[in-house]
C-alpha cells in the first residue's frame, strides 16, 4: 500500500533528521519545476503535483538510506543540486515525489596537484570550485554559462558543456572518477585512473543519467594549468551561416583547438549587441588560450584559415573580450530576467541540437523555415535565431534561441501555446536530417517522445540500463525515458 504524505515525511525525518526534511509549502512549490516552466511559476502558478518533501542529505550514507526507503515504497525521487535545469528534469510529475537535494553535500574534498585531480561532493558549486582552483593557478576548464549557479552533481548528470569545450572538452571528457548511489542503496565508487581497458567505460552509465538511474554523490575531474594572460580573441563579421560552418569545420579539421569557437547568426547576435558592431551580419569568433606558444600558434593559424574566405571583416578583439567577460549568468541576471518577464510578458527559451558537418546548415535553415511556416503564433515572436558554440572534428552544435510575447493566454497555457510546439519543430527537423535532438541540456521531460527515435536500435541498451538499475522506476519518472502506458 502507498504511504501517505505524512508517513513519507515522518520516515524521512527518521532517516535524515528533522532539520534536513523541508515541508514548507512555498519551498516545495519552487522545487516542483525548473526553468522549462519559468513563465507560469513567475506568476505564482504551479501545475505539477507538489512534492511530499525536500530532503537535504548530509552524506552518501544518508543518500543510500533514503533511496532504499523510496525504492522499497515505490516513491518517485527527483534528484537536484543547483536547480538550473532547463528541460523539465526537475519537474515532480508524480504525486508525493521526494526531491533529493544534494546542495548541502558541498565540500571540496581534495585538490591533487600531482595527479591534476579535483574531487568534490555533488553540491559543490562549480564557480566556487573554479575560484579555489584559480587561486592555485589551475582551472577545471569547465565553464557553462550557469557556472555561478550550477553544482557538480547536476553538471555531471546532464552531460553539461562549457564555453571552452573546444579545447577542454565537455564534462564527460573531464570526469575521471565518481561515486554514485543506486535506488537499492548500493554505493558504487569508480576509481581515478588515467585510462584503462577493463571492460566498457562504466562512467558513462552515470554521466548524463539525469537522475533517472542513480544519484551522483561525488565527482573527480581533471584540472589544467590556467594561463589567462595568454588569451587571444579573434572575430569576424560575415554574411551567412553556411560560410561560417565551412570555416568552423576547416579550423577544426586543420587540427586547431581554440577554447572558444562560436558562430552567431544576425538575429541571435542582436541579443548580444553584436549588431552595434556588425549590423545584419553573422559573427564568427574564437579564443585561443593555454600555454603561450600554443595560444599564439592557434591564433595565427585560425586567422590564416579565416582570411582565405572572402567577405570576412575583422571585428575588434576588445569588443569580443568585453562581451565574453559578461556572458556568465549569475543570480542577478535570473532576477533581471524574471522582472522583465513579469513586467513585459515577454520570454525566451532555447533548444540545443547537434549534427555532423554535412547536415548542420540544412538543420539550421530547415528549422527556421519550418517555424516560420508552421508555427501558428509566429507574429508573437520577437526573436528567432541561433548560434553554434561547440565544435568537434566531425560536426558542431546548434543552439536555437526564440523569444516571444505571451499573448492572450493564461500563465499555465504558455508552454502549450509556445514553448512545446517550437521545441518540437526544431527537434523534428533535426532528427529528420540525421542530427541529435539534445546537445547539452539533457532530454529532460519534454523530449522523451523522441528518445526511441534518437537512439534507434540502440534504445535496447538504454532501456536495459533502466531495467537493470531502476527496476521499480522510482528515479525521476518521465525523464530520458517516456512514461509508458500501464
Amino acid at each position, binding site marked *: 500500500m502507498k504511504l501517505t504524505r505524512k508517513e513519507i515525511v515522518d520516515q524521512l525525518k527518521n532517516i535524515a533528521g528533522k532539520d534536513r526534511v523541508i515541508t514548507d509549502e512555498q519551498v516545495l512549490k519552487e522545487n516542483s519545476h525548473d526553468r522549462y516552466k519559468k513563465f507560469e511559476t513567475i506568476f505564482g502558478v504551479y501545475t505539477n503535483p507538489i512534492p511530499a518533501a525536500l530532503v537535504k542529505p548530509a552524506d552518501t550514507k544518508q543518500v543510500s538510506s533514503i533511496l532504499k526507503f523510496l525504492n522499497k515504497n515505490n516513491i518517485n525521487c527527483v534528484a537536484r543540486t543547483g536547480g538550473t535545469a532547463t528541460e523539465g528534469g526537475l519537474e515532480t510529475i508524480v504525486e508525493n515525489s521526494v526531491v533529493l537535494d544534494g546542495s548541502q553535500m558541498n565540500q571540496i574534498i581534495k585538490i591533487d596537484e600531482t595527479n591534476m585531480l579535483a574531487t568534490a561532493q555533488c553540491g559543490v558549486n562549480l564557480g566556487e570550485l573554479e*575560484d579555489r582552483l584559480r587561486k592555485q593557478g589551475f582551472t577545471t576548464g569547465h565553464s557553462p554559462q550557469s557556472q*555561478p549557479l550550477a553544482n557538480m552533481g547536476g553538471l555531471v548528470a546532464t552531460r553539461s558543456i562549457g564555453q571552452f569545450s573546444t579545447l577542454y572538452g565537455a564534462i564527460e571528457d573531464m570526469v575521471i572518477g565518481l561515486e554514485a548511489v543506486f535506488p537499492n542503496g548500493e554505493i558504487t565508487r569508480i576509481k581515478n585512473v588515467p585510462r584503462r581497458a577493463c571492460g566498457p567505460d562504466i562512467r558513462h552509465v552515470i554521466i548524463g543519467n539525469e537522475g533517472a538511474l542513480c544519484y551522483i554523490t561525488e565527482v573527480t575531474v581533471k584540472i589544467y594549468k590556467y594561463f589567462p594572460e595568454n588569451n587571444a580573441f579573434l572575430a569576424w563579421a560575415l554574411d551567412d551561416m553556411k560560410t561560417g560552418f565551412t570555416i568552423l569545420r576547416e579550423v577544426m579539421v586543420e587540427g586547431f583547438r581554440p577554447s572558444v569557437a562560436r558562430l552567431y547568426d544576425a538575429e541571435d547576435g542582436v541579443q548580444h549587441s553584436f549588431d552595434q558592431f556588425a549590423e545584419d551580419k553573422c559573427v564568427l569568433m574564437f579564443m585561443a588560450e593555454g600555454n603561450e606558444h600554443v595560444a599564439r600558434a592557434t591564433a595565427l593559424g585560425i586567422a590564416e584559415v579565416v582570411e582565405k574566405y572572402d567577405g570576412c571583416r575583422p571585428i575588434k578583439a576588445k569588443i569580443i573580450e568585453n562581451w565574453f567577460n559578461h556572458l556568465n549568468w*549569475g*543570480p*542577478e541576471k*535570473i*532576477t*533581471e530576467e*524574471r*522582472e522583465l518577464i513579469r513586467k513585459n510578458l515577454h520570454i525566451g527559451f532555447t533548444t540545443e541540437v547537434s549534427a555532423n558537418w554535412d547536415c548542420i546548415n540544412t538543420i539550421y535553415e530547415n528549422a527556421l523555415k519550418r517555424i516560420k511556416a508552421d508555427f501558428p503564433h509566429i507574429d508573437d515572436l520577437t526573436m528567432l535565431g541561433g548560434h553554434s558554440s561547440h565544435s568537434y572534428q566531425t560536426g558542431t552544435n546548434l543552439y536555437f534561441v526564440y523569444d516571444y510575447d505571451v499573448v492572450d493566454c493564461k500563465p499555465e497555457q504558455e508552454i502549450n501555446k509556445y514553448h512545446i510546439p517550437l521545441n518540437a519543430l526544431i527537434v523534428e527537423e533535426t532528427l529528420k536530417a540525421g542530427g541529435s535532438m539534445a546537445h547539452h541540456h539533457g532530454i529532460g521531460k519534454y523530449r522523451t517522445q523522441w528518445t526511441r527515435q534518437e537512439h534507434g536500435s540502440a534504445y535496447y541498451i538504454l532501456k536495459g540500463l533502466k531495467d537493470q538499475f531502476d527496476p521499480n522506476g522510482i528515479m525521476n519518472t518521465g525523464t530520458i525515458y517516456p512514461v509508458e502506458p500501464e
Partner: protein
Amino acid sequence: MKAALVLSFDSNSLQQQAHEINAMLNHTGTQFSNVELWLFYKDRKPEFSPEIFCPLSGIKLIQVEYVHLPESYLDLLVALMGQCPMDLLLFTSDGLGQELATRLAYRLNGSSALKVEDCRLIRDTLEVIKPVYGNNLSARFVLKSSPYCLSVAKQPFHPVKMILMELLKIKTILLNQTQPWWVKEHLTILDPPKTGLSNTDLVLVVGQGAGNKKTVDVLKGIADTIGAEIGGSRPAVMNAWIDINRLIGASGLIISPKLCIAAGVSGTGVFSVGIKNSRFIVAINIDSKAPIFQIADVGIVGDLATILLELEKVILTDKNKKQVHHIVESRIETQ
C-alpha cells in the same frame, strides 16, 4: 566678487541644503566682497534662517506665489538680478536648484553647471569640478561667462542649525507675479514622513542580488532586529522591492552612516557615490570581483541572505534584549 546663496525657506530639506552650500563655500577658497542670502518663502515671512558659515552682507526675503512652478522663481530671479547683479549664484542640489541654475544662466547669458563638488576663482574665470561618465570620472571645467549659476553637489546628511536673522540686514522683496497660463489645476500630495535613512548610524543597502521581493522582506526583518534602516539600489527600487524614497546613489540619497552594509549590489559609479562617505563599509557579494569591494572596508564573498541571517543570529545571541535596545536608542539620540 559678489555671490548670492539661493534657498527656499519652505523646503523640507532647508537645513541640509544650507549645509551643502556651506560645504561649497568652504571649498572655494575665494574671498567674496559680498555674500547675500536669497531666501524664497510663500506665506509666512521667516524670522529664522539656516546658519551660513560666512559673513552675510545682506538677506533678501523673496515672496513667491506659485511655489510649485520653477518659472515663477525664474521671473523673480531675473528681476532681482536686474536690481542687484551678482557674479555667482549658488543653488541647492535638488531638482529645483538644478533647474533654476540652468535656466537662469541661460536667461542672463551666464554659465552654469550642476552637481558641482568644488569651485575656485582663478584669475577672472571660475573653475568647477563635477562628476561625468556616470560618476566614474570627475571633470574640471572653466566656466566662461558670469553670472555663474551653480547647483551644488549633494552631501552626506549634516543639517545646519536655524538661527535668528539679523533684522538690519533683511530686505523684503515683493514683486508682481503673473499666473501661469498652462496650469489648469494642481494638487500636492505630501510624502509620508521622511525615512530615517539619511541620519542613522546603521544602514543595510540591498541590490538586485537579493533576487526577489520575499528575500527583501526577510532582509527588512533583519534590518529591524539589528536596528538598521534599509536602502536600495536602482533595480531594487524599480522592482518595487524597496520604496523609491529609499533609493541610494547619484539619483537618490547620499548617506554617510557609521556603518553601511551593502548586500548584493555590484557597486557601479552612480551607486557607490551614495555610500562612499560612510565611515565603515561592509560588502556582501557572491562575486569576489564585484566593484563594490573596491570601496568596502570589509568584504564577504557569499550569499547575502545566508550571511545576514547568520549575522542576525550572532547579534541576537550575543546581545541581550536590553543591549539591542541600546543601539536603537543611541540612534535616536543622534537624530
